[in-house]
C-alpha cells in the first residue's frame, strides 16, 4: 500500500499477508467455512446456506512438496500449489470443499482432494461445456442438486428467499469492486494494479457483508487521493486465468508500467457479471455462471459469417476493457499446462492484433523463481510500447 498510516489499507494488507486470518477468527466463533476453487462455484448458494465461502489460494513463495507426493507434476501449477498448501493444513479451518467442472486439472483431481483433505463435506458441480438451452436446463438441475446437498450438510433448507438475499449481497460486492476499477481510469491511475489485486483477493475470503463493508471503507479512503501517487506510464491490461498473488502485478509496475485493467478470474471475469435479480434464483445463477462468466472452458458457438466476427463475440469483452481503460498494451499471462486457455492463445492474439494492440504472451510456472526471466521480457515489451 502506498499511503502511510492508512488503517483500512493496512488491514487489507494484513488480511492478504495472513491469508485466512479472518476465516480462522470466524471459525473460532462458530462460523462454518466452505473452501472452493475457481470462479465457477456459485458462492451465493454457499452464503445462502449460512457458510463462509473461502476461495483457496496457492502460494508462489512456497515450494510444492507434499502435494507432489499425491499428484503428478503435469497438472496446472496453480492448482498444484493450492493443493499443496491445503495438504499442509494451511486451511484447516475449512469444513467443506466445493470444486466445479472447470478444467481437467481440477476435475481429474476431485477425488484426490476429497480423500486427501478428508473434510466432512465435499461436492462437485458439473457445468456443461455449451450454453445452449438443454445445457442451461441441465445446469439448473445440477445447481438444484448442489443446493439440496449443501442444505443437508447445513441442516436447513436453502430457500429461494435465502438465495435472493445472497444474490443481492454478492451483486452489491461486485458493484463495489467495479467502483474500485473506476479509480484506475485516470492517467496516471489513482490506485495501482497491485493494490486492486490485493483488495480483490482478500474480498473473496470474507463473509460477503464484511467484504462489502471493507470495500466501502477502502473506496472512501482511496477517493481521498487527490493526486495519483503514481507516475504516468504505459497502461497495461493483464489477460489470463487465475492470478491470486500480487507478485506479478508488482513485477510489471516495478518495471515501469501501470496495470489499469485485467481480464482475470480474480478480476473482471468474476467481478463484472452480476446475477439477474428477480425470477427463479437458481435460473439466474445458472445464467450467470454458465453464460455470463466468459471463461474459455465454456465453448461459445461460432457467431457471424467471418472469423473476425467470431473473435469479436468471444473476446469482445477484452476489447471493451481496452477501450474503457485506455490500454496501451496487453500481457497475456498463462500458467503452463492450461489447456482451456492455451488452445486460445493464437485466437486471442489474432483478436488483439486486429485491434492493433501490442501483446506480450508469457507462459509461466506458479513460482517466484521465474521472476528474473519475466522481468527481462516485460521490460523489453514496455520499451517497445514506449518507442
Amino acid at each position, binding site marked *: 500500500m502506498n499511503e502511510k498510516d492508512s488503517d483500512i489499507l493496512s488491514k487489507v494488507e494484513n488480511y492478504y499477508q495472513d491469508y485466512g486470518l479472518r476465516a480462522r477468527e470466524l471459525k473460532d466463533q462458530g462460523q462454518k467455512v466452505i473452501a472452493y476453487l475457481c470462479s465457477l462455484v456459485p458462492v451465493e448458494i454457499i452464503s445462502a446456506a449460512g457458510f463462509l465461502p473461502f476461495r483457496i489460494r496457492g502460494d508462489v513463495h512456497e515450494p510444492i512438496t507434499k502435494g507432489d507426493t499425491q499428484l503428478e507434476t503435469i497438472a496446472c501449477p496453480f492448482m498444484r500449489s493450492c493443493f499443496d498448501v491445503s495438504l499442509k493444513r494451511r486451511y484447516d479451518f475449512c469444513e467443506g470443499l466445493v470444486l466445479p467442472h472447470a478444467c481437467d486439472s481440477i476435475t481429474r483431481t476431485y477425488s484426490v482432494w476429497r480423500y486427501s483433505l478428508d473434510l466432512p463435506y465435499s461436492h462437485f458441480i*458439473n457445468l456443461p461445456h455449451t450454453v445452449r438451452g438443454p445445457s442451461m436446463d441441465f445446469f439448473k438441475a445440477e445447481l438444484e442438486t448442489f443446493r439440496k446437498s449443501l442444505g443437508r450438510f447445513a441442516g436447513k433448507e436453502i430457500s429461494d428467499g435465502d438465495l435472493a438475499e445472497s444474490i443481492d449481497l454478492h451483486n452489491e460486492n461486485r458493484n463495489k469492486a467495479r467502483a474500485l476499477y473506476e479509480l484506475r481510469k485516470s492517467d496516471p491511475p489513482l490506485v495501482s494494479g497491485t493494490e486492486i489485486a490485493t483488495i480483490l483477493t482478500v474480498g473473496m475470503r470474507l463473509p460477503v457483508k464484511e467484504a462489502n463493508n471493507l470495500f466501502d471503507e477502502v473506496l472512501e479512503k482511496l477517493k481521498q487521493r487527490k493526486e495519483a501517487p503514481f507516475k504516468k506510464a504505459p497502461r497495461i491490461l493483464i489477460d489470463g486465468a487465475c492470478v491470486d498473488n500480487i507478485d506479478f502485478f508488482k513485477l510489471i509496475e516495478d518495471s515501469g508500467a501501470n496495470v489499469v485493467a485485467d481480464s482475470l478470474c480474480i478480476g473482471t471475469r468474476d467481478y463484472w457479471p452480476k446475477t439477474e435479480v428477480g425470477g427463479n434464483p437458481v435460473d439466474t445463477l445458472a445464467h450467470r455462471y454458465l453464460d455470463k462468466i466468459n471463461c474459455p472452458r465454456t465453448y461459445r458457438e*461460432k457467431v457471424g459469417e467471418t472469423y473476425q466476427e467470431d473473435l469479436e463475440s468471444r473476446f469482445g469483452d477484452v476489447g471493451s476493457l481496452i477501450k474503457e481503460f485506455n490500454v496501451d498494451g496487453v500481457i497475456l499471462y498463462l500458467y503452463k499446462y492450461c489447456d482451456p486457455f492455451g488452445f486460445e492463445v*493464437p485466437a486471442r492474439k489474432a483478436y488483439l492484433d486486429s485491434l492493433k494492440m501490442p501483446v506480450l504472451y508469457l*507462459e509461466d510456472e506458479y513460482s517466484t523463481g521465474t521472476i528474473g526471466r519475466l522481468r527481462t521480457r516485460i521490460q523489453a515489451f514496455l520499451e517497445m510500447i514506449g518507442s
Partner: protein
Amino acid sequence: MAEEQKKEERKRRRHATEAAGKIGPMVKATIGGTVKAREEGKSIAYAFIVCSYDEIIRAMDIVPVWTENYAGICGAKRDATRFLERAESLNFSRSLCTYALCGLGFDQWREELGEMPPDAPWGGQAKPDFMLSSGQILCDPRNKWYQAVQQYMPDVPIYNVGLPWPLYEDDIDVADVEDYYIKYIVEELRGLIKFLERQTGRKMDWDRLSELVDLGERTWNLIWETYELRRAVPTPMGTGDAMNTMVPMVFMLGTQEGYDFFLELNKELKDKIARKEGVVKDEKYRLLWGGGLPSWFALTDFNYFNSKGAVFPVETTYRMIEPIYRLNIPDTNDPIERLAWRWIRYWTYWYDKARKRPGSEPDVERLIQYIEDYQIDGIVMHEAFSCRTWHLGLIWQLNQLKKIYKPIPVLRLGSNRQKKGEKRELPSLILESDIVDISSYSEVDTRNRIDAFIETLEQTKKNNR
C-alpha cells in the same frame, strides 16, 4: 527426418496375435479411405473416439476422420515433431495435448499449402466438412481443439456434443441424478442429428440407426467376452496387442467389420488357449497396465517387458466397454435413449462396488477387480506429460490402492524376533514420457526402470515362495 529415426521406424513391434498384426494395414486403408472419400464428395467429419456418436455418424454414411488417431500414427511413425513444432510456432504451448498440437500443426500446414504437407504419413488427414467436438467431463482438448483449428479453416462448422456423467460422490447416488443426465444427453444427441441432417442434406434413417445400436451393443459384449479370455495362463494376448485392437473397438464401433474383427480374435484366442500358447514361452510375471495412454512411438517397450518374461493380460486403457447385460439399461426402443443410457451406465459402472469398500474409489476398484480376475503380480502405468485427462490421479490411485489392498502375504521379523505374517501391496511402476512427443522419451532410462521393476517383481516372488 534423420536417418537414425528412419531405422527406428523400421524396428516394428512383434505381435502375439495375428489379428493385431492386421490392424496396421486396416488403419492405413481407413486413412487412405478418408482422402478418397473427400475426392468422391462424401461427407467427412473430424471426430473423437468414445463420444457416443459412432452409430449416429455410421447410420448417416458420414466418414469419420479420427484426429487423435492420426496424431498417434504420426507419433508411431516418429514423424510428429515437425507438426508439433509448427503448432508451437503458431503460439500453442508445447505443454498442451500433443494429439491436438500435432493435428493443429498438420491442419494449418495443409490449409496454407492447399494440399497435404510433404510426405504426410499415410497420405495425410483429409479436410473435413464439419467437426464434432465433445464437451465431456474430461478432456479439455476435445472441447477446444476444433475451435482452435477453425482459425485455419473458418468455413468448417462445429457441433460440440455435451456428454457429461456424474462424478463419484459420498452423498449422492447416481440414481438420484441420472434422469436429468439422460435427458440432457438425449437432447444433445438429437441436436447433433439435426446438425448432421442440415450439413449433409440427408435425413436420419432411424431403423438403420436402431440396427447399428444393436450391432454396437453386440460388439461390446463380444469384446468383453474376448478380452476375458486373456485371463488364461499363459495369457494369449497382451496390452501391446490391445493397443492395436483398440482400433476396431473404438474407431469401428457400429460397423460389421469391427464386429467381425472381434469374432476372429475370439477364435484365435481360444485356439491359442487350447494350445497353451502364450505371449511368451515362459510367463513369469503378469502385469496390469493400470493407466495412461501408451507412447505410440515406443510400443516396442511391450516387447521388452516380454523379453523379461512379463506379460500384460489386462489394461484399463482403451478397455472402453463393459458387458451390456450388466449395465441394466432400461427397456426402450429409442436408439438415442439407448446410447445415452449406455454412456451413463458405462461411466458409473464401478460406483456401487466402490461404495462397498471403505477408502475405495471407482478407478481403484476397477484395478482391484482386474488384479484378482487376471492374477496380477504388479502394476505399470504411464504418465504422458501432455495429457491431463488420463494421467492425473495415477499416483493417487496407486497410493490409495496400497492403503486398502495388500494381497501379497509376507513374513516379517517382529520386535520379539518372532516371524509374523503380514500382507503387502503389489509392486508398481510409473513410466514417464508422452503419447506423441518423442523428445520426452529416453529408451535407455525407460528400460533401466523396467529392469529395476522386474528385479522387484522377482524379489517379491522369491519372498513369497
